[in-house]
């Protein structure tokens, strides 16, 4: 039998098996159970929040934002890897992306979903969140377009929508494959509904690929813009430590940095668990690690640049802030950030480590931690000592701050587990093609 067909068959079988095989494996059930418990913690935390008010957190005047917006920025950042991989790497003809882009996209969507939750629940009066949206109302009032928060709403919404579209488009041919391979009729029909009757017509493929390319072209500036807009939340303010022109680029770099870290954190165990080493090879890990190294260096440059400007501008407030970050009450968070985001990535210079899943896993975890610390440093240390010493204050997280953070992780992993079980986590059609092309 011809090898092209064999290649395709092999790929189809291996990937779709993960979805179609039942009952689910014990390991999956276990992981899903744990994340679901954390999801319930989130539910509890939000319930208490709505009953009592944001005062259950440790926030105060001057520190009006703390864990809430830190989590928001952190999650949004993580949400950047997906689109980066599927869009930018596509335009750059990085074929190795094919076997991880689906997973990364899914991760993006879930991360952005987690992120999007925080601007809503951090409101003092969440029941009127929709006042941020422009709709004709009986008050004749509109949003205040100069506010970066409004920009955020549009940026995040756009990003979420485009990511979902991109992801779903990619799924259509695979859904068709699943439709054809699934056993019970109801399941085939279910997949069939979402496959929209895709029938592998070459004309469809043609338009499909054009659309995919166009979306990639649109998503590329988008992915840059989203975190720039998020950084505007801080950059357009006048608080020392926020009021900084370098924020957009260095936020974007940081975002991709943390995004890839999270991709690795997830993909390394998954590929082990489902024995996907042949599809997600060490080269994939290696390349991702290289991207992390590069973006990590950009982030490091951002840090140095901040310190430099503080010294060079001779702004007493900025100078004080910088010193306060290094030596003040939250110094240990600052140095944790430095260690994880500047120190640890340097290990990635070594090829051995880049190709060793275990060490790479540990590194990626540390980087995730470091990036959370970065956002905390930017938000809290800048706020807790700004212009008037009389109103300087300290932020102390309460149990509810932690519960909300942990809960958002619960939400994220629950979604990831559901995704792994229900949809092909690797793009069947793309891998199919790649496999056929490099067949003997």
């Amino acid at each position, binding site marked *: 039998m011809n090898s092209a067909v064999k290649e395709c068959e092999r790929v189809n079988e291996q990937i779709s098996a993960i979805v179609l095989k039942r009952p689910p494996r014990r390991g999956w059930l276990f992981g899903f159970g744990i994340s679901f418990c954390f999801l319930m913690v989130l*539910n509890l935390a939000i319930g208490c929040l709505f009953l009592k008010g944001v005062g*259950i957190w440790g926030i105060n005047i001057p520190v009006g934002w703390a864990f809430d917006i830190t989590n928001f920025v952190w999650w949004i950042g993580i949400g950047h890897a997906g689109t980066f991989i599927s869009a930018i790497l596509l335009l750059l003809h990085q074929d190795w992306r094919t076997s991880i882009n689906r997973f990364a996209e899914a991760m993006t969507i879930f991360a952005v979903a987690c992120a999007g939750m925080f601007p809503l629940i951090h409101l003092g009066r969440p029941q009127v969140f929709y006042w941020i949206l422009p709709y004709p109302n009986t008050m004749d009032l509109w949003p205040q377009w100069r506010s970066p928060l409004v920009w955020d709403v549009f940026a995040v919404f756009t990003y979420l929508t485009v990511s979902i579209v991109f992801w779903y488009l990619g799924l259509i041919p695979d859904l068709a494959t699943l439709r054809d391979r699934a056993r019970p009729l109801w399941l085939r029909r279910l997949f069939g509904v979402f496959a929209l009757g895709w029938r592998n017509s070459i004309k469809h493929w043609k338009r499909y690929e054009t659309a995919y390319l166009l979306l990639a072209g649109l998503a590329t500036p988008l992915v840059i813009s989203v975190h720039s807009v998020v950084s505007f939340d801080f950059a357009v303010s006048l608080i020392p430590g926020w009021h900084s022109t370098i924020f957009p680029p260095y936020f974007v770099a940081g975002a991709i940095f943390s995004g890839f870290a999270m991709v690795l954190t997830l993909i390394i165990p998954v590929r082990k668990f489902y024995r996907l080493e042949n599809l997600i090879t060490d080269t994939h890990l290696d390349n991702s690690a290289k991207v992390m190294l590069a973006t990590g260096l950009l982030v490091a440059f951002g840090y140095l640049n901040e310190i430099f400007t503080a010294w060079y501008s001779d702004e007493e407030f900025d100078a004080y802030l910088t010193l306060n970050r290094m030596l003040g009450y939250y110094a240990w968070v600052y140095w944790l950030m430095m260690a994880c985001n500047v120190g640890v990535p340097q290990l990635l210079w070594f090829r051995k480590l880049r190709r060793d899943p275990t060490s790479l896993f540990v590194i990626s975890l540390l980087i995730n931690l470091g990036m959370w610390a970065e956002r905390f440093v930017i938000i809290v240390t800048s706020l807790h000592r700004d212009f008037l010493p009389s109103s300087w204050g300290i932020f102390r997280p309460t149990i509810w701050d932690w519960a909300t953070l942990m809960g958002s992780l619960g939400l994220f992993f629950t979604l990831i587990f559901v995704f792994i079980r229900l949809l092909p986590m690797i793009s069947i059609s793309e891998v199919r093609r790649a496999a056929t092309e490099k067949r003997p």
Partner: protein
Amino acid sequence: MTPHSLTDLQKRIPAARGALLWKSLDQLANTPEFREAIEREFPVAADEWPDALSRRRFLILMGASLAAAGLTSCSRQPIEKLVPYVKQPEDLVPGKPLHFASSNVLGGFARGVLVESHEGRPTKIEGNPGHPASLGATDVFMQAAILQLYDPDRSQTVLHRGFASTWDAFLAALLQEENEWARDGGTRLAFVTGGVTSPSLRYHFRRISERFPNARWIVHEPACNLETPRVLPSVDRAGVVLSLDADFLAWGPGMLTNARTFARRREPGNTMNRLYVVESVPSLTGAMADHRFPMTPSDIVRLPEQISAEMRGATNPAAPPWLPPLVRDLRKHAGDSLILAGEFLPDSAQNEIRLLNEELGNVGRTVTYPTEALTFPGTHALTELASQMLSGSINAVFLLDCNPVYTAPADIPFAEALRKVSFSVHHGLYADETAEACRWHLPDLHALENWGDALAFDGTISIIQPLIEPLYNGISPHVLAAALLKQWPANDYDIVRSYWRGILANDDFESLWRQAVHDGVMAGSVSTPAAPPPAAPRAPPSPNPNAGSGLELLIRPDPHVYDGRFANNGWLQELPKPMTKIVWENAAHIAPATAERLGLHHAEEVDLIYRGRSIRAPLWVLPGMAENCVEVALGYGRTRAGKVGSGLGFNSYQLRTADAPWGGPGLEVRATGRMHRFATTQEHNTMAGRDLVRFADLTMYRETPHFAQQHGHTPAPDQTLYPPFTYDGNAWGMAIDLNACTGCSVCTIACQAENNIPVVGRDQVQRGREMHWIRVDRYFRGTVERPDILHQPVPCMHCENAPCETVCPVAATLHDHEGLNVMVYNRCIGTRYCSNNCPYKVRRFNFLSYVDHSTPTLKLQRNPNVTVRSRGVMEKCTYCIQRINFARMNARNQNRSIRDGEIIPACAQACPAEAIVFGNINDPDSRVSKLRTDPRNYGLLAELNTRPRTTYLAKIFNPNPELKNV
């Protein structure tokens, strides 16, 4: 832990006899459930922890998060009731407030007030401009009085042995006793009263003592030294003022007048006065001083002698180096100088200082001495009384307007003695510690509920008129006095009025009386000083009483809870103490050097051991304290103050002895190593080298008047990408003169009263969530031994380029056409972004539901013209927009524009020093625009190009050139 409601707890109290009931309450007060219940019951101590998670509660929580939030938007408005009068009062216009003159009495002395009343509810107290002790200003106690009126914890019924009883039952009991007293002229009868200057009441007291000639009269005012001869300074006439531990700008019955007149002489220029302050504990007066010398009390006592020696040209090496130049300055200004003696100095020193004033020829010019009418009758021989009560030679006691069980010196077993007395009556606003120990307790009336009169510090007769029917079944002291004269039924109005009818004995009494009630003062009633009573001859130099080593203890009244009588007043409890910015508790203050020498740390809990008694107190290391002494404030550690005030801080009375009421040498401090977490509104004490409070010497100011504007770089209005916004019509602005501001922080509490600002409680302040719209920042500058102490009131700056506005996503904060930075609560969704981006951090956020919706009386207090803010909403200073709108409506209805000075924000109106001026900066003739053209005028953080509408006038010191090097 299962949640307890107060009712549960009350059920658990054995319904046994009274004495036992109190006991069990006390025990309960210390159980955790009780505190927990209290905290849940009263938002004052609101905590955000969810209650124990019972299954049901858990489900609620889970459900709440799943509930769709948006639904609230299209809920149907509930139908509101509209309840008109049955018979509408004559002069009342619904929706328009009325103002009535009355008086507020503290320690017996009256300060005139104007009370604002909405449909019969007094809501706000302002100063009475026509009253010499107020001049239109108020102090914190006057402002807080309104909250006290509505305090739900006020005693509401007559109590007999702790059980509810009636006035008639008391009269019946009294009748029996009286006959017995009448037999022996009241040999076994005693009266203990607070300071009383009320002519009518004193008249009745005289008649009572005529009826019971052998009865003892004792005046008990724990917070003031009744032995000090009273002095009437005319501060505005003095070019040089030397204060020996006298906090004359911020303490005492004449304080408002002093602050006002002092500020008038503070204008930088040739007439600017110079203030020397020698004191042990940094006071607000000390903060105003051009030269401030910290000194232990025992050294201050010896200072007058040294001064007089210096004046006589005698050289004494013991004198501090700064003394000779100081004395030279005094002599240069002989006749327009003034030496003021602290209330707590011993007689010898008082007398010495009086002689000095005479020698300088100040008497009659800068200082006069009031007639005897003002000094109190009786001595405060509480010790003697207690022993008599114990021995049984006294078996009937009346305790009027005082709380000796709590306030008596620790070496007097007053409670024990009181329990021995067969007929003891307590008459007061609260069923307090003393009420508990008495057989009878009679609820007093609040000053806003009854008729009365009192004398001001200068003897002006002030009328007290009620604003509202008694909320509870209070009994006027006049009625009680009448009862002791067998006159009942009686009512306070008739008693007071008939007394004055007798005094004035004028056929035109009616009009005189009406005038007096209308003005709040009896016209021309100021007691002109008679020939000053001769001073005692100079005593021989006394040896330094503090020859021995060891620390010195200072016991002083608390700046905000006074002697403890205001402990249950949330506004005063949450008002930051002027020097430390502590709230809701007191601390033991100590000098940095001393603390270091003793190896003690800030916020460490220590045992203060004095004369064999010991209390545990947290230590506060206070720059500018005199070395080798520790100061503690009275008024805390109360057990029965009420829900708000009980169990806060430590009780300094336990260190107080009858012979040393203000402390003395021989204190021992023992470290415990335990640390305490203070609730304070300002955690950082220096300006970190930033030009926030700008100041200069008079000489430097003469050379470069614009020094304040040379700091930093303020961008020109056209240095911006956008065209500037123009304001035609009114443009509101405020100027704050740091040179006049004493930092008394009455502006803060006045604002709280005017703008329905909630009290959030100790825990929330610790989390940094205080709600005050205008705060008074306090900075130390220079050495920790002798720092400059700078005060700076900070309201919203109403920046023209407001950073807060551009970041609000829903335009809940924006500018109106008169340049106000308005905060629209009902549009706010609570992102807190505006506060983050506010360089001045003047915005306040309702992190939890801070407003008390449950207590009906507190609702009565609220200002109907200010929105009550809900949870999750940002708020801030509005320049009292309700007052602006009120003035605008009047002006428009009369087809004219608003006059300068027609709008006075609450802070400005209360300020004794007239440091805050508000007005239209587009009108070149308005006071505020004149001040803004003053060379001292500068904008706080103006280099950020926020273009603040609130600006400051730099502070000017007038130091003695001779003292530069010292």
